[in-house]
């Protein structure tokens, strides 16, 4: 990275940044909700849907759709940041805190880890530090803006980890695998960052 950025001749901000403290570096605000997916949108019927937490000893805990719905719901309103440069403010979600799921797993004797990998319908995976999905920072979300989450946005359920770039908020999530060692997921194996903090602009492998 060159330390002194190259000044683009004749380039000026087109509009004032109305929310400088909410927009991470290199991002712009959009009012749309763009869709980015690497393949076709999976369509798993709720009767065949379940959510599983697995730990490194092989113990697992599984919820059906109805069992998951019976857990206490959260309704976070958060800003989201996509690595393709758009950010969207004040998005309204409904889901289950990952803390609630891990509490149930611990009650069953399952061990915490240092990392997790989220796995999904369609084969997508993404890796996250355990500490990034606990402590009120992550949800399994199935509602968006007062309605069921649409399939192209990850419905019936997606992971929601709004403080990291949005590819970490895995669409069509079906479970979390608890790991002691980091194991790169889908985009991470293809050159994207293992953590993906938008405020540090951790877009690609090798970014600080």
């Amino acid at each position: 990275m060159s330390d002194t950025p190259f000044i683009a001749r004749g380039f000026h901000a087109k509009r004032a940044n109305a929310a400088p403290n909410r927009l991470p570096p290199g991002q712009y605000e959009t009012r749309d909700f763009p869709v980015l997916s690497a393949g076709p949108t999976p369509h798993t019927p709720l009767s065949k849907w379940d959510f599983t937490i697995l730990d490194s000893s092989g113990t697992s805990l599984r919820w059906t759709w109805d069992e998951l719905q019976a857990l206490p719901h959260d309704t976070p309103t958060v800003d989201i940041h996509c690595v393709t440069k758009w950010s969207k403010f004040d998005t309204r979600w409904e889901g289950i805190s990952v803390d609630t799921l891990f509490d149930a797993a611990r009650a069953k004797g399952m061990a915490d880890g240092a990392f997790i990998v989220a796995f999904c319908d369609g084969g997508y995976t993404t890796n996250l530090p355990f500490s990034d999905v606990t402590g009120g920072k992550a949800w399994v979300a199935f509602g968006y803006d007062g309605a069921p989450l649409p399939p192209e946005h990850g419905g019936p359920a997606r992971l929601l980890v709004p403080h990291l770039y949005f590819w970490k908020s895995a669409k069509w999530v079906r479970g979390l695998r608890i790991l002691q060692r980091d194991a790169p997921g889908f985009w991470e194996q293809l050159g994207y960052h293992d953590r993906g903090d938008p405020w540090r602009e951790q877009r690609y492998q090798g970014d600080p």
Partner: protein
Amino acid sequence: MSSGIRATPEVTLERAAAPTRLEWRVATVVSVRAETRHARTLVLDVPQWPGHRAGQHVDVRLVAEDGYQAQRSYSIASAPESPTLELTIERLEDGEVSPYLCDVLQPGDGVELRGPIGGYFVWEVTLAGPLLLVAGGSGIVPLMSMLRHRALAADASRARSPVRLLYSARTADDLIYASELARLGSAPDVRIEYTLTRSAPADWTGYNRRIDRPLLEEVAWPASEGTRAFVCGPTPLVEQVANLLVEFGYDPLRVRTERFGPTGS
């Protein structure tokens, strides 16, 4: 759980060396080419460009004198074999970066970029088997890199990867690369079909509607094990085409997509 836990030494060993950072490079504009009323190609000389695969993109960064910066991603249009890197930019009227790249940037100017980025929406001629490309609007750009790459391959390789392109645009004037596509489409094993969704000239012989099931059934390869599909365009088009291809029996892992824009039309 301690929040201080981070990658263990074993992880570091598995990743043999620290990954190389994608560095920002100042490319020089060699020439510019108007493609349509709304799209322009930048021909760039990029120092120490590491090379790319067809389908990948770059990040472009514009920094103003007051430090304000804007970044956007653009697909690479040129073949990996090309000595220059070409980006085709569609000018978005309310955009911040594309009007600069289309209207302000001139030959001799520098522009900052880093890449190549993306490793899933990529195709190489060594992946033998029928190839289906479906483009909506400027979604043709990464597919053009694939077509150009294929055209430069040896005859035997091309014969093993026959290609069909279905290209949807609003009007005939919005078709990017029209004359080059006409040339490429005259080659054996290349079939190109167009559909215009808004208006078509009186003598138009292509399709004249949004891509629907009968249209895609007519153009797409029948589903078979080795067929690969790449679909790039606005979200509603990509959703429609990818869903249909899976219904036709395409392997979802061989239907690769790049979407731009929000849901809904």
